[in-house]
């Protein structure tokens, strides 16, 4: 009996720990699942039955006639990208008229006014870090606002059905590809460019012929790093300038004071040089820029070797000259 009594508290303690651990595990799993999972509600699913497809089925409820129609690219929504996007938690009618619930959609929905970023995010403290008002001011002075007027708005670049913020975990190369895709969507697509501007698409490749290793530049640097004026208070520059005002001096990036440190690498950990002695070391995680990434230790070593060589030559030649003079005097 005495033995049984001494075992009971141990068993009780172990049981308590096991229950607490199980509870914690359950909480963590359900919490993680809750964070990851975004669900499409029934209403959105109903919209996506047509809008997620390349073709959709339409039936006239009066006559009973049916037809298979093409869903135009700009009206198609990828459900996966929608859920991954910043606005993925919204229902369609959070932003669009409830009249869209009627199929076929009535003509009145064509007159619906799109929300702008400021309609939801303007003056909201929760989004203060994004400085939406400053973005709006910068955009208003940009070449897009100036030349395209009301034909251009936030959504021309930022697709509200898929746009997402790239956090620090996203590699610079992926960030560049994602951001440049927004520009190439028009500047690399004749149809989209013409719809917006009514002009023929200039040849993006030949216009950048002056740029050495063009493909590598396009892969490693964002268009806006050269084509937009930087603003310290903004996460991403929005003042896109006319092409003739774009950065054309190589040295603006290819130097230790590289402008890329205040644009593309703005959010990366900054240090003048990293532990291996590379200036702007954060760039060397994914790229190498001649002139911007020289190494401090190699610099010191090379200058030291160079000076020692010169010193050696000066000493040797001085003794030679002195000896030659001495022999000449004799």
């Amino acid at each position, binding site marked *: 009996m005495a033995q049984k009594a001494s075992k009971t508290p141990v068993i009780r303690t172990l049981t308590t720990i096991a229950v607490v651990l199980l509870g914690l595990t359950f909480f963590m799993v359900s919490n993680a699942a809750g964070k990851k999972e975004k669900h499409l509600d029934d209403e959105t699913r109903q919209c996506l039955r047509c809008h997620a497809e390349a073709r959709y089925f339409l039936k006239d409820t009066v006559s009973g006639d049916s037809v298979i129609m093409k869903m135009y690219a700009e009206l198609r929504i990828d459900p996966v990208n929608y859920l991954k996007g910043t606005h993925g938690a919204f229902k369609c009618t959070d932003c669009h008229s409830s009249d869209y619930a009627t199929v076929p959609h009535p003509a009145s929905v064509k007159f619906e006014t799109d929300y702008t970023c400021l309609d939801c995010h303007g003056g909201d403290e929760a989004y203060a870090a994004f400085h939406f008002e400053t973005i709006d001011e910068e955009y208003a002075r940009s070449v897009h606002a100036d030349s395209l007027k009301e034909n251009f708005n936030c959504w021309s670049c930022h697709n509200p059905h898929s746009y997402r913020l790239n956090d620090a975990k996203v590699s610079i190369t992926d960030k560049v590809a994602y951001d440049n895709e927004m520009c190439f969507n028009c500047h690399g697509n004749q149809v989209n460019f013409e719809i917006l501007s009514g002009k023929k698409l200039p040849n993006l490749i030949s216009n950048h012929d002056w740029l050495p290793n063009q493909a590598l530049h396009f892969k490693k640097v964002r268009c806006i790093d050269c084509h937009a004026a930087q603003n310290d208070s903004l996460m991403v520059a929005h003042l896109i300038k006319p092409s003739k005002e774009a950065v054309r*001096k*190589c*040295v603006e990036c290819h*130097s230790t004071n590289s402008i890329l440190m205040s644009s593309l690498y703005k959010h990366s950990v900054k240090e003048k040089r990293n532990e291996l002695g590379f200036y702007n070391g954060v760039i060397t995680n994914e790229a190498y820029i001649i*002139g911007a990434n*020289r*190494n401090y230790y190699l610099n010191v070593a090379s200058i030291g070797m160079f000076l020692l060589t010169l010193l050696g030559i000066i000493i040797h030649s001085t003794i030679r000259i002195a000896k030659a003079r001495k022999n000449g005097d004799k």
Partner: protein
Amino acid sequence: METNKLYLYPVWVRLWHITNALMCLALILSGVSMQYSNPEFPFIRFDIAVSMHNISGIILSAMYVMFFVGNWSTSNGKHYRIRIRGLLNSLIKQARYYAFGIFKGEKPPFPVSKEMKFNPLQKFTYALTMYFFVPLVFITGWALLFPGMIITNVFGFGGIQITSLLHVTAGFLISLFLIIHIYFCTIGHSPSSNFKSMINGYHEPH
């Protein structure tokens, strides 16, 4: 006096040498300008420096092929062949001469002849430069000319970064070689005689 002169440098060697010298100079100047580029104090405008470096590098590569083929098909190649046996002793002997003997008026331990154009120290440094550092700078230089072909990641380091470091280091050591080479060329019959030799092909005995 004319009979003492040795014809050591045939036309192709002299043409190769002068082109090499000019291209090396262009590469060093443009290379330093790119490496230490600064918008406030531009030495050579960056895009001009890039073009200058690329063109000079391509010409120098062609010159290296000429050098390699020339050395392989003529007797000039023998001057770059190093014999390991006794190498250290002869290197020390020549270095001692440059460090002390030359000031005492001693005769060079390895006088220039048709059979031995270079002293052991020259032979060693020329061979090391021409068969190691110059090929290294060419391979890395051509790779940097087509950076898309370079392996992206090598054990956690960027391929372009490693290639660039090797290129810059090899280029710097070649620059040091060039400076020392020019200085040692002043050691001859007269300070200018070795420079004249590379123009007329005749070496004046020291």
